[in-house]
């Protein structure tokens, strides 16, 4: 192992002590391995000295999973190679290292250009086929495109398009992991399944692990809370969404999908919230061609209108129609133009059926227009961050308070009514937006001071209980990380938490990986 692989954390490493959750931690050492060999060497060293390890990718996570609580930071951003390509049954599969950045990956796929240095002959042949074949894309679209693939796998990332394409889990066909002891584990989808709740894993080091899976039933909704557990589950799914607590991903195989010929975005403005909720339910019936359904409430409009006037960075925002209270954004993914047109006119009819008007729509059919709507959609979280940063100057005790909960389809009206009622009663400023297609909305409370913040936190907990009762998930896409560990408890209860801890202990007996993530450290190394 080269001398300078493991470094002492110094001033210049400050940025690595925090992530997008705006939490900060501490650590004694840090490394940036470039190969699996280096990564394993570091892990082995830490395992021998029982030093806790926090795994990091792009540090774009919102739940502080990448924030270290002492010990060593294993930063994988320099393991960013694309290693090979495979074609099977008309689909393409890309092998990547965990530090590959999503935006870079998207760019490479769109331009059909990869750095193929070191690729074997099979990969080069597949590359040629990829360059001349139909256009491909990688569907998962989390908001922060500077995320790394390893991180996306760790939190089972989702985005607007997960409505149609599912979370990243559905696009990972193989993983190569290293357990905390340095023992590698290779998992290919379909090759290793549990028997009911018993799972047998065979590592590359020749060890066999018998895992007893927790007994809980996951909610049927969009879910990124705790371990993915199912009867007869595929072993690979246990590690996807495990928030950096079970093993370190050293390689992923990603499935690419054919790019729909026509992607159109339609923003539909309504005067009343009830109209949009019914509209959403109607749109859900339109089937496969709907790529995404997103929502922005009146609180978002207020924020955007204010920022457009005051902040030059947002002067490029289009003017929101005067009489609009909220908007539903629908994305159409069609093979041919005719289908897209027909669907568009159907949306117009559905709008009118709810008392809306089809002239109160923005339709994006060109890349420039789609980018504008993209900018519009991402302005909401950006404006919230700016606002909180501003208010935090006077009240340092406040922080961002955004929920990430999902409920089943039939609870949509109920959960929105609950949010509206509770926030009105508490008198809290707020903005709500999100993936309404999956009944997954981000309720962002905008506290003015520490009192607001405390009331907000209490509401959050109350909602976690209510959402669990409705059969939903407390974290639908951001992951539990460190900041939502208490809500995982609300969702599953102490017994199931213990089961998860036992599962972790079977894979990481010394409890080295991701301390503080998902649940507190257990004093006993094994049970």
């Amino acid at each position, binding site marked *: 192992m080269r001398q300078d692989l493991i470094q002492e954390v110094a001033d210049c490493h400050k940025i690595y002590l925090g992530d997008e959750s705006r939490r900060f931690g501490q650590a004694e050492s840090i490394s940036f391995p470039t190969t699996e060999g280096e990564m394993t060497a570091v892990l082995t060293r830490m395992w021998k000295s029982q030093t806790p390890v926090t795994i990091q990718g792009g540090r774009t996570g919102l739940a502080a999973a990448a924030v270290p609580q002492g010990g060593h930071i294993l930063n994988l951003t320099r393991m960013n190679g694309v290693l090979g390509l495979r074609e099977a049954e008309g689909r393409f599969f890309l092998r990547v290292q965990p530090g590959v950045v999503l935006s870079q990956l998207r760019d490479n796929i769109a331009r059909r250009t990869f750095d193929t240095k070191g690729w074997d002959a099979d990969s080069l042949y597949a590359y040629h086929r990829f360059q001349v074949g139909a256009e491909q894309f990688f569907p998962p679209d989390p908001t922060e495109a500077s995320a790394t693939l390893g991180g996306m796998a760790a939190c089972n990332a989702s985005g607007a398009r997960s409505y149609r394409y599912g979370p990243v889990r559905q696009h990972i066909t193989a993983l190569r992991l290293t357990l905390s002891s340095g023992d590698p584990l290779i998992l290919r989808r379909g090759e290793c399944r549990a028997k009911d709740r018993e799972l047998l894993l065979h590592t590359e080091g020749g060890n066999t692990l018998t895992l007893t899976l927790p007994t809980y039933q996951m909610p049927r909704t969009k879910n990124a809370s705790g371990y993915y557990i199912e009867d007869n589950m595929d072993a690979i799914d246990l590690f996807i969404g495990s928030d950096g607590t079970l093993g370190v991903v050293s390689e992923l195989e990603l499935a690419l999908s054919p790019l729909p010929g026509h992607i159109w975005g339609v923003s539909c403005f309504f005067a009343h919230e009830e109209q949009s909720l019914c509209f959403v339910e109607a749109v859900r019936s339109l089937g496969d061609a709907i790529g995404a359904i997103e929502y922005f409430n009146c609180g978002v409009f207020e924020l955007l209108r204010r920022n457009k006037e005051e902040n030059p960075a947002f*002067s490029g925002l289009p003017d929101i129609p005067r009489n609009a209270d909220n908007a539903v954004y629908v994305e159409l993914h069609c093979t041919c133009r005719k289908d897209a047109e027909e669907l*568009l006119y159907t949306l117009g009819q559905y709008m009118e059926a709810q008392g809306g008007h089809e002239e*109160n*729509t923005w*339709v994006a059919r060109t890349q420039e227009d789609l980018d*504008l709507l993209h900018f519009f959609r991402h302005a909401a979280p950006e404006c919230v961050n700016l606002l909180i940063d501003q208010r935090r100057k006077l009240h340092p005790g406040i922080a961002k308070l955004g929920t990430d909960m999902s409920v089943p389809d039939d609870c949509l009206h109920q959960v929105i009514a609950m949010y509206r009622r509770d926030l009105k009663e508490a008198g809290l400023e707020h903005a709500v937006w999100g993936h309404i297609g999956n009944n997954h909305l981000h309720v962002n409370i905008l506290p003015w001071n520490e009192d607001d913040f405390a009331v907000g936190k209490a509401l959050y907990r109350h909602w976690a209980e209510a959402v669990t009762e409705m059969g939903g998930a407390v974290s639908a896409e951001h992951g539990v990380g460190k900041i939502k560990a208490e809500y995982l408890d609300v969702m599953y209860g102490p017994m199931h938490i213990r089961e998860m801890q036992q599962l972790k202990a079977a894979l990481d007996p010394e409890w080295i990986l991701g301390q503080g993530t998902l649940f507190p450290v257990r004093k006993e190394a094994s049970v």
Partner: protein
Amino acid sequence: MKIVVCVKQVPGTARVPLDPVTHTIRREGTRSVLNPFDSCALEQAVQIAERTGAKTLALSMGIADTELLLRDAISRGIDGGMLLSDRAFAGADTLATAYTLSMGIRRAGGADLVLCGKMAVDGDTGQIGPELAEFLGMAHVTQVTKILAVTDKSVTVKRKAEGESQLLQVRLPALLTVVREGCVPRLPSIRGIRAGERARVPVLDANGLGVDTGRTGLAGSPTQVVRTFMPQRESEAVSLGGSAQEQSTALISLLQEVGTYA
């Protein structure tokens, strides 16, 4: 009042990637789009029409499927479109293009105000506007950032000059080329798209337009490309390697050496 907006279809993206091995241009499956500067010209025209009741027309010289672009303009609030399309128009430089467009505007009954985008992203010359104005015999102003007042006799505009802005009053008929600043082109609504689909867009060829084909297309272009080539690619640069931290330290030392940073 009659406003004509000249628009052009250009390749989908200005970001043209290079094949790393052969160093030639790679097409990315790009679709043709409306020249981004022209979307601002269209938006300005629609805004003026909303204020004054003027009639607006989108005009383009291009291949057959440029018609889609004109329908898209109609979906964003333009009243009508006209396409000038003929093999005889292909290969035109700016002079030949300006001539052809001027004939189109005459055929459409003339214009009080002609709007063009500042330049096309694939040609970058910014020459069509002034040349077209000369052929139409109207005054022209380039780099217009804001159209402040419109009457049936004149327009008052703000434009960018070097190191300053200028307020000008221009007598109609006139041609303006507009820049993108402060302009957010509106998106079509579902209703607008339906209007665009249903509109009648006349397509005129050389005969229909009554042009002298010796002045259109390649035949009418004084400038010709005689050679295209890749610029030299050898890199004799000194590499600074290592981790981000190491590179940063090396850079700062280098800056100290050259005296930029003490």
